[in-house]
């Protein structure tokens, strides 16, 4: 859905994006993560056609963003990190303006407002002025403005910043729903745990470069079909050696009381390994599938990047 090649963007005295190339799969929810100043916002603004890069190409839904930004806007919604609302307009007016200015036919606008308000749980707030709403509700209105024309691609820059846990959860539900409707989402956030709830892909950037861009569905460690964490009730110095002798096993991390392994095969193979462990006299306290969360995944990609730099 989004294809970027050799994207470079400069600010005075600073290269914000350096030869960035990436692909965002259609129907995915991609978590765009990275430290402050990594280039996340610049990348989003370039994709949205709000900034013109020095070089490179950006293709969204088969259209060249640099050459035809206005055509791309028709299929795109964007929520900037410092979004604004027309404070004196009611929620209904904000949504109506967004719908009309995105080219929706007049007859379709009332239904679009109703549906968007329903999706965002704003139906009972339609007559309230946006300036009188709480931060969370304002955020919802802003998202409503970005999605009212049913874009195929939705870019959200820090959509959950300043939201309470309940509002964040609501947002996660919404994003999953939008994904289910076929929308492609690119979401940047500092709160990785929250992104973990709905992201299908990870796009990690640092110093204007892409560190990692991969699917999160296969959250097992690379090179193995299943990842397991074994924890022993008491330390046993034989553990690492014993595991090393087992066929179809790759050890990623091991100590005297725990190990992280990759195992080839299905649940039967997993159950067989557990039986063998017990039989060998290990006091197995836990034997569970291990899924790397977004935070760990991100930190690992940063660590790899730093290692490569050295």
């Amino acid at each position: 859905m989004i294809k970027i090649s050799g994207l470079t963007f400069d600010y005075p005295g600073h290269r914000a994006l350096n030869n960035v190339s990436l692909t965002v799969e259609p129907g995915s929810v991609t978590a765009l993560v990275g430290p402050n100043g990594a280039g996340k916002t610049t990348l989003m603004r370039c994709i949205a056609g709000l900034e013109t890069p020095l070089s490179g190409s950006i293709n969204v839904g088969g259209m060249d963003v640099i050459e035809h930004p206005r055509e791309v806007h028709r299929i795109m919604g964007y929520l900037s990190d410092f979004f604004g609302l027309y404070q004196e307009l009611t929620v209904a007016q904000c949504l109506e303006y967004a719908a009309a200015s995105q080219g929706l036919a007049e007859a379709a606008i009332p239904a679009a407002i109703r549906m968007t308000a329903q999706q965002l749980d704003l139906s009972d707030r339609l007559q309230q002025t946006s300036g009188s709403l709480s931060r969370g509700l304002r955020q919802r209105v802003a998202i409503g403005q970005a999605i009212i024309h049913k874009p195929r691609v939705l870019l959200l820059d820090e959509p959950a910043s300043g939201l309470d846990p309940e509002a964040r959860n609501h947002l996660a539900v919404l994003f999953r729903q939008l994904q289910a409707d076929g929308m492609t989402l690119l979401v940047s956030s500092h709160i990785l745990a929250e992104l973990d709830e709905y992201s299908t892909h990870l796009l990690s950037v640092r110093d204007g470069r892409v560190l990692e861009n991969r699917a999160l569905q296969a959250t097992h460690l690379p090179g193995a079909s299943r990842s397991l964490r074994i924890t022993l009730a008491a330390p046993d110095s034989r553990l690492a050696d014993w595991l090393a002798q087992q066929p179809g096993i790759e050890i990623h991390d091991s100590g005297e009381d725990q190990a992280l392994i990759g195992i080839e095969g299905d649940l039967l193979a997993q159950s067989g390994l557990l039986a063998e462990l017990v039989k060998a006299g290990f006091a197995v306290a836990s034997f569970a599938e291990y899924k790397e969360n977004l935070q760990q995944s991100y930190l690992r990609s940063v660590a790899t990047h730093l290692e490569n730099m050295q």
Partner: protein
Amino acid sequence: MMNPEFKRNLWLSFSTHKLIAMPALLTLGALALAMSDKFSDRTADNLYTAAVSAFIFIVWLWGARNANLSIVDELRDKTWDQQRMSALNPWAMTWGKLFGSTSFNWYGGAICLAIAIPAGIIAGDKAWMLDLPAFVATGIMLHATLIALNLHTGQMEMQLIQRGGLGWIVIIFTLISFNIFTDVFIIEHDITWWGIQAPGKLVLLYSTVLFGICAVFSAWRVVSNALQVRTIPWAWPLFALILTAYFSGFSASASEYPVFVISRIGLVITAVMTYGTLFSEPARLPDWNMLRLRQQRNDWRGWLQNLPLWPTTLLLAFCFALLGSLPADNPQTGLGLIYEPFLALPVGFAFMLLRDAGIVLFFSFSPKSKRPGSVALLYLIVLDALLPFFFKVAGLDAVSYFLLPLGNKYGAAVGVMAMATQAIIALGLVAWRLQQSKLAEAA
């Protein structure tokens, strides 16, 4: 479907209370004036004057404030990105903002006109037929100028500008200019423009309509660029030519040396426009790199789309300077550029523009300079005023002349060469800065 931008502005501008209050207040005011004046034989005249004054206040001043804020508020409240991504075409966005943000003022203005027109008819003076359209055109011109100006200067570093301060300067400037124009044109005698004789008021009306159209056009162009409809910079130099033709029309046709007059007027106009855009457009190193890249790729359309406006009027300034040096059409016929200081002055002045552009770029391309425009301005003041003055009072006339060779002391050729040398040094500094940036990039 109603223009969404216009409709949004109507929502913001009107309420039932405001809808009733405006006509009620204006009608009451008019009635009070008429009744207090009932024994005077100049009631209609006074009513006309009062209605016109109210129009000027409501449409020009108040309306200008609203037009000013229509962009300043969008930028400040971070709603501008949403507008930039909308499907509205630039013209719909332009007129939606232009007439939407000032709709309440035009509502009040229309009521004022509804009072002024019958009052003018009763007063028996037909001047209203020319005056009122001129007032309307001036209002549109003012509002459109402010929209264009605020969008154009939206990226400038000064807080005063970001808060719409520049708009107020324009409002004050327009009021003063209109006063001067009115003083000139209101005199009952005819005015000659390019050999055409017309009543002063008619010329004033045509002038305001012309500049009103130019202002709306410029607002549309600036909005187009903001909405990613890229344009190539032909309108800005064309506007310089229109201004030159307009102002030359009052004096060149009466002059024995029309080309000489046109070139001098053109040079002044292009210089003002060059300086104006030089300091108001972002001239950052990435923008320059973009131009370089377009050039390397032979993407000349893209190159023109990324070209700032100031080089276009700078080029025109050189054209006017050279035009003014034509020996055949000069007060001192037969003398060429090199021999006649009087003729060489414009060429030296054009080189001065080039030098100043180089100085601005030198500071703009610095990776450390936080306020390049202000720093460059400071250096220009030092270079053009303080240092020449200092060397002059110190008795070093030659040094003073080298810095500001616009006089006639050492001859025309020396003056032109001195300024050309300065321009070359300034451009050399820019080249050095670019080289440094390339080295830093490579490192």
